[in-house]
């Protein structure tokens, strides 16, 4: 493990430049996609009928939230949440540009990502974190996994106050945030249980819907999901490394694992097979993408055997080729929407 932190395999300037360009491209893509999705928003879309609070302004707000969050948390000991939400934003941009995402889902995921970031960077203030996670859960019931992950991680965190007390405060925050958003929805004319219950008939649940859902969204999400899983794996492998990740990364790792497990259960109960839910399922993996990216970047700068260099190059090319059709389609939509008068 110490070899990873060795000075001889530090990233060279050209790798830093490539990394910076990649991040800038991702940010530009995110802004373009989300703005294009907002500008061409259609209020008659089924997604916005299901979620009356959704609208272009919410998409833009979600995008801003993602970007601000990424900026604020970029220098944390573990940049997982910051980089991860950039990845979330990239996927959201592709989906939003194609009108495949619920604005409420996007906003909810943004809140969940913010909650995870706060959970790591502000361990002494669990109540506001809980409020944010509860609000996210109220906006999209599928984000119950984020709240569960947060509670589970809070129970394990080692900070000033007792862990039981921290968990209670975080849980109270979750309930409060959930209630506030539910109340707002009720005042807006929606039944409270719309925020927490599944509005579709139970007959629509089942493996067939899950399979259709997977087939519909996989073209866009599969390669990125692969990278996310890579990040998860690497995060799990090197979480104990003193020179690679800070000890604070452990709660994030644990929270994301719990979030993923709950999401698998939630996936089986998805009421509708739609691409918007992909982002909810994808979000926890995305939070660990930067961890995987750091390891990949170090491996690229290390002295690797030819076989490993060839493998990385070949499969990076493959992933790029697989992702390209979806990028091209969404990019065309973005350009048309941004250039239209």
């Amino acid at each position, binding site marked *: 493990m110490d070899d990873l932190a060795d000075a001889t395999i530090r990233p060279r300037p050209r790798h830093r430049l490539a990394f910076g360009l990649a991040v800038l491209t991702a940010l530009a893509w995110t802004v373009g996609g989300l703005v294009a999705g907002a500008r061409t928003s259609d209020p008659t879309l089924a997604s916005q009928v299901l979620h009356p609070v959704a609208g272009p302004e919410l998409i833009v707000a979600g995008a801003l939230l993602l970007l601000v969050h990424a900026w604020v948390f970029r220098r944390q000991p573990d940049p997982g949440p910051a980089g991860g939400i950039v990845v979330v934003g990239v996927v959201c941009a592709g989906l939003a540009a194609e009108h495949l995402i619920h604005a409420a889902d996007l906003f909810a995921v943004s809140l969940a990502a913010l909650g995870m970031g706060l959970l790591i960077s502000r361990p002494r203030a669990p109540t506001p974190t809980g409020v944010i996670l509860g609000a996210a859960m109220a906006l999209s019931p599928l984000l119950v996994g984020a709240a569960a992950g947060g509670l589970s991680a809070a129970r394990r965190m080692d900070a000033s106050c007792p862990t039981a007390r921290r968990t209670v405060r975080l849980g109270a925050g979750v309930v409060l945030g959930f209630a506030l958003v539910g109340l707002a929805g009720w005042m807006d004319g929606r039944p409270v249980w719309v925020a927490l219950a599944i509005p579709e008939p139970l007959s629509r649940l089942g493996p067939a819907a899950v399979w259709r859902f997977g087939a519909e969204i996989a073209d866009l999400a599969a390669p990125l999901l692969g990278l996310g899983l890579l990040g998860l794996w*690497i995060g799990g492998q090197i979480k104990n490394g003193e020179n690679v990740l800070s000890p604070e990364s452990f709660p994030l790792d644990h929270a994301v694992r719990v979030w993923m497990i709950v999401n698998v259960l939630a996936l089986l109960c998805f009421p509708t097979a739609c691409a918007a839910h992909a982002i909810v399922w994808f979000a926890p993996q995305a939070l660990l993408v930067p961890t995987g990216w750091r390891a990949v970047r170090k*491996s690229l700068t*290390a002295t690797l*055997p*030819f*076989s490993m260099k060839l493998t990385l190059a070949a499969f990076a090319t*493959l992933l790029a080729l697989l992702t390209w059709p979806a990028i091209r389609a969404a990019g065309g939509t973005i350009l048309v929407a941004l250039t239209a008068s």
Partner: protein
Amino acid sequence: MRSEPHNPVGRAWTWRLWLCLAVLGILAVHGIGRVGAFCSPIRADSYAYSGFAWRIAQGDVLYRDLLVDKPPGLLWLLAPVHLVAPAARWPLIPWESAWMLAGYWAFYRAARALYARQIALALTVVAVLAVNVFLLTDYTTEGFSLAESYLLLPTAGAVALYWRAARRGRWGRFVWTGVLLGICLALKQTALPLLVAVAAHATTWDLIVDRAPGRWATRAAGLLLGIGIVAAAVAAVLAAQGVLPDAWHSMTTRASGLLRRETGWPGRWRDVVPLWVPLGWCALGVVLWAHSRPTPRANTHSPAGRNLTFLLLWLAAECLMLVLLPRRSFHYYAISCLPVILLSGMFWAALRRDRAAVPAPIAKVVFATAILGSAIAFRPVIDELVPVSISRVRSYDAAVDRNAFENAKQSSDIRVK
């Protein structure tokens, strides 16, 4: 190329986990593939074979009452099922599955002779996927209970046994290899490329490279004895039934008339979707092999080099056969793809060999990238396997199945597929 784990305690659990996952995956793919093939709306070979096998079980004589242009092995293999099971096609399901599952095990043993157990297990999963997809998506026939399903076991078994025999040099194993080759030929003529590969490999190595004519003669005698035992048994039964000349005419003259009618060569990349990933691994493996070999002679003279030479000979023979076969039917590829999949392990073996040169996390990054990239590239295969199988199950009509079986029982001629 083959190496053992360094930390048995730590790796035992990992190995058991991977083994459980692989077995579950193999059973799932096999189940989906077999159910989809059984429920196929195409009603051709499996109905004819099961109908003929039922008639043989009732006392009819092959090549006299029933005309086929294949060796008798397949129908003789299916006939005993109808001695104990009712006259229908479904009793062949467990019989075929038992042979195929044993064939998967034999393939694992063959791969194990070349590679570490993790690589052999991964190649077995890929082989199961490829075999089932090729059989399921063959739109010229239904892919259920074909000769290829039963060929998998003796083919992979013969390869594994031949490698062990060549390494240890025991004469008895060459006899058993010959017996398995004889069983392959008794099932279908398309097993000929494997026989050609074994003969060419043994001759090349013993006579030309090692210049040991005595050893070559001993081994060739063992192989020929094994093949001869099976051939003599088949010929004796046919002669006792008085149909030996007719059987020989059907298996050779009549069957060869179908060759060169069209071609079985896959004309499009789309035809070999299950082989995209293994072919990619092969390409990477060849590059790594060319890059890393210290000297050509030292590399090709190693046991692994000899086995790889055999695989190349087998692949060349299979390709030649595909060119000559009468039609582009995907079920031909179910056996022809095996040398490609075995060769593709070169890539993983090279990667595994170099993993000690870098820190463990970095090696894990590389392996994770390769595994996930390969898994994503396999998605078109899964996308084809599962929906096709589900749609066939939904459209399956048992009454139509029974009628087709009854009609097949009345027929008296099967053309080669």
